[in-house]
């Protein structure tokens, strides 16, 4: 009964989404207030029904209702409770439902925080989001219904993929989807601007915090995915340039470009049509990412050669959303008047440079991701594109972006002076360069890649300090007063940039100075790595809730201090799939990482031991990026705009009441 109610709720949600997607847009076009008034209640009603459907699916999972095919395929009676709940979004169908739920959540957020928007703008934004929702709900109901029953009912499920039975995987998809789907708000704002032909500074101010918040979630989601790959896959890597990773990295790059372009549109009224195009691009890449991961076009066990129905449906949906919005862009963009002129050396010009380079980097990732598909489709053979390509192309494109981070925030709008900039930054440049050349010698000798990375990171950090010093020079009061007088937007930018520098340090040091050994160990054997002495004390069988683990004990010793790591090799009962759980000792300056390979005779195992200097700085940097985003999005000027608008609309309402 419950699954049927969920199914029914999805149908109702689809009808509400159609209402939300059609009537307000007509209303906004004709200036009909009644039709525009439909937008908010329809969106909120849709959210209630999608949430109800999600609740029904979660209930079926929690109660182990194996008569639901989706539950039977992705759950098991021995599965611990928490994973039984999270299995709700562990499957294709369930993750689509989560996508839709988050989309309607964002729409409700727009209905709540858009009271200060002109009514036609708000209606268009909500209407466009309704149309996107129609696509996803129809896709689910037509090809991927999560509530289908299974007859005969199997006695037990076939279990959730063990890779997903992990806390990191529990939080990763919702975070990622908050980011992906969050770009739909910026997208809807862009389409609304194209439809109305109105794109002014106020428009940029409205869409900016939404974009920043979505970007913040995407940053966290991507970082969590990378961290998960690091501790769960057992080979110590943190980024593989895998199509699935690229699928979340490409919208991130587009979103980063969008945030910066929006800043120019808000402050200077320039880059308007460019900003609109980036907003369309960021969301299009989110959809494309979903398509690539969900359709099996790139790498998946199930190609759609057998059942291309789903793939064709998503592709048609992509065609309508992306093709339609790009056609609208081509038709309407000339209407968007371009703002103030600027010289070749100004903050605008530097931000334009940032945008162009970010998009070039994005293009290189897109090309590398789809190249195997292009070759295959043209009948030119099967190839795969790996990390060597990405590193060779991506690093040269992203390095100048990192360099520009040092210059852009210190440059004046419209017209900056190059000689002045050189005299302000020459010391930062020189010191960063010298330190970056010397540091690698302390770890073995000259290393140009390490020098490049360290130089860029130090350069960013030094210029941030210069920025603060210059901002505070003329301020009044104590240092604390001075610092707290700086707007949150400024803090957000600097913290995010510092986060990038921290991440670059992590990536540089770990890729150039990590060490690893892959050895056969008998009980009592030891191996030395980076000054650590690892002693293998054997593997014991330990039962888990739904798996049996071979739990290793490895004692690690360095200059008298000792600790013990417990890497595991698990065999899951239901699927028989083996999983590796790495044993990691986290530290600010290094991780010590061990994982079990294969069992050999007489209690011996192959064991991998790694020493990973500064690896946690990667995720620390990502955290700072997200923190910067949160601060920037909560800047006072957005809150003031909100409060003012509320007051104005209250007054208006009061007037209306007396009239």
């Amino acid at each position, binding site marked *: 009964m419950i699954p049927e109610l969920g199914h029914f709720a999805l149908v109702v949600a689809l009808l509400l989404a159609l209402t939300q997607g059609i009537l307000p847009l007509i209303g906004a076009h004709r200036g009909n207030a009644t039709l525009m008034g439909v937008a908010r209640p329809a969106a909120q009603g849709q959210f209630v029904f999608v949430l109800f459907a999600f609740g029904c699916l979660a209930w079926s999972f929690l109660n182990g209702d194996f008569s639901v095919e989706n539950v039977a395929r992705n759950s098991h009676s021995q599965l611990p409770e928490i994973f039984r709940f999270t299995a709700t979004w562990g499957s294709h169908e369930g993750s689509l439902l989560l996508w839709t739920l988050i989309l309607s959540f964002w729409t409700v957020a727009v209905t709540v925080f858009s009271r200060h928007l002109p009514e036609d703008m708000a209606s268009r934004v909500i209407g466009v989001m309704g149309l996107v929702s129609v696509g996803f709900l129809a896709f689910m109901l037509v090809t991927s219904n999560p509530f289908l029953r299974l007859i005969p009912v199997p006695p037990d499920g076939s279990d959730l993929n063990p890779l997903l039975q992990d806390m990191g995987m529990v939080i990763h998809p919702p975070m990622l989807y908050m980011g992906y789907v969050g770009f739909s708000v910026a997208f809807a704002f862009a389409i609304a601007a194209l439809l109305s032909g109105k794109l002014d500074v106020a428009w940029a101010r409205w869409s900016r915090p939404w974009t920043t918040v979505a970007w913040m979630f995407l940053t966290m989601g991507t970082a969590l995915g990378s961290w998960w790959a690091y501790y769960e896959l057992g080979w110590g890597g943190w980024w593989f340039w895998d199509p699935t990773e690229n699928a979340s990295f490409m919208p991130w790059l587009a979103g980063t470009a969008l945030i910066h372009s929006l800043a120019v549109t808000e402050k200077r009224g320039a880059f308007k*049509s460019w900003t609109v*195009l980036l907003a*369309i*691009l960021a969301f*299009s890449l989110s959809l494309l990412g979903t*398509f690539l991961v969900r*359709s*099996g*076009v*790139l*790498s*998946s*066990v199930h*190609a*759609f*050669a057998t059942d*291309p129905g789903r*793939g*064709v449906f998503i*592709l048609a949906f*992509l*065609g309508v959303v*992306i*093709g339609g919005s*790009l*056609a609208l*862009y*081509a038709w309407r*963009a*000339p209407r968007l008047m371009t703002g103030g002129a600027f010289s070749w050396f100004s903050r605008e010009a530097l931000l334009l440079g940032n945008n162009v380079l970010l998009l070039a980097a994005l293009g290189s990732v897109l090309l590398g991701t*789809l190249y*195997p*598909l*292009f070759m*295959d*489709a043209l009948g030119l053979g*099967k190839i795969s594109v790996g990390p060597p390509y990405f590193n060779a192309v991506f690093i040269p494109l992203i390095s100048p972006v990192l360099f520009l981070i040092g210059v852009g925030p210190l440059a004046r709008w419209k017209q900056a002076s190059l000689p002045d900039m050189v005299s302000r930054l020459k010391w930062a440049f020189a010191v960063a360069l010298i330190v970056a050349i010397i540091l690698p010698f302390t770890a073995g000798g000259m290393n140009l890649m390490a020098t490049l990375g360290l130089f860029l990171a130090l350069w960013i950090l030094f210029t941030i300090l210069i920025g603060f010093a210059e901002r505070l020079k003329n301020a009044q009061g104590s240092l604390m007063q001075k610092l707290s007088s700086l707007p949150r937007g400024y803090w957000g930018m600097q913290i995010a940039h510092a986060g990038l520098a921290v991440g670059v340090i992590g990536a540089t040091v770990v890729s150039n100075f990590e060490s690893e050994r892959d050895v056969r160990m008998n009980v009592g054997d030891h191996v030395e790595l980076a000054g650590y002495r690892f002693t293998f004390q054997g593997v014991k069988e330990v039962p888990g809730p739904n798996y049996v683990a071979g739990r290793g004990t490895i004692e690690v010793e360095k200059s008298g201090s000792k600790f013990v790591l417990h890497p595991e090799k698990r065999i899951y009962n239901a699927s028989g799939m083996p999983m590796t759980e790495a044993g990691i000792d986290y530290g600010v300056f290094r991780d010590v990482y061990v994982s079990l390979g*294969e069992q050999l005779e007489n209690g011996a195992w192959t064991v991998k031991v790694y020493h990973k200097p500064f690896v946690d700085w990667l995720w620390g940097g990502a955290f700072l990026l997200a923190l910067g985003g949160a601060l920037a999005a909560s800047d006072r000027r957005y809150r003031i705009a909100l409060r003012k608008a509320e007051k104005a609309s209250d007054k208006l309402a009061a007037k209306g009441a007396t009239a």
Partner: protein
Amino acid sequence: MKRWIPLIIFAVLAGFLYVGLYLNPREVPSPFIGKPAPKFVLPVIGQPGTTFSPEQAKGKVWLLNIWAPWCVSCRAEHSFLMQLAQSGISIYGLNWKDKDREAEALLNQKGSPYIVTVDDLDGRVGIDFGVTGTPETFVIDQSGIIRMKHVGPIDEAVWKKKFEPLLGKLEKST
């Protein structure tokens, strides 16, 4: 014109994605398919002085299973290969790079699914067959032409899906 560029790029991309839906990214074709199996003469394990070459199997459909005693996935497929052998499938083994000389003892202990298994100690014949890892299994027809190559262990699902239809077709053609 400039403003139409994004739309044009997307249209091209969508075309490729559409074609991509009908392709299988996992399937890597072997250049050996449809070609005669590479010739070799190698000593047979457990029968000193005897050699085997593919010509001796001409006239029937047979499987060449590349395996090694040190290969864990080969052990995983061993019991299924035993079943196949009992049901009358002709399987020949190629023992690849067995530096520790463990094959004979292992087959004596666990049973051999192979009519014969040959000893490719330096791995040269494996290279002629384009072997990238063990286990790999080739289907070779009556006239010595390679018809299919499977990478990875064989289990019941793989057998039903990939091997049975092909073997049925090949047997009929005689």
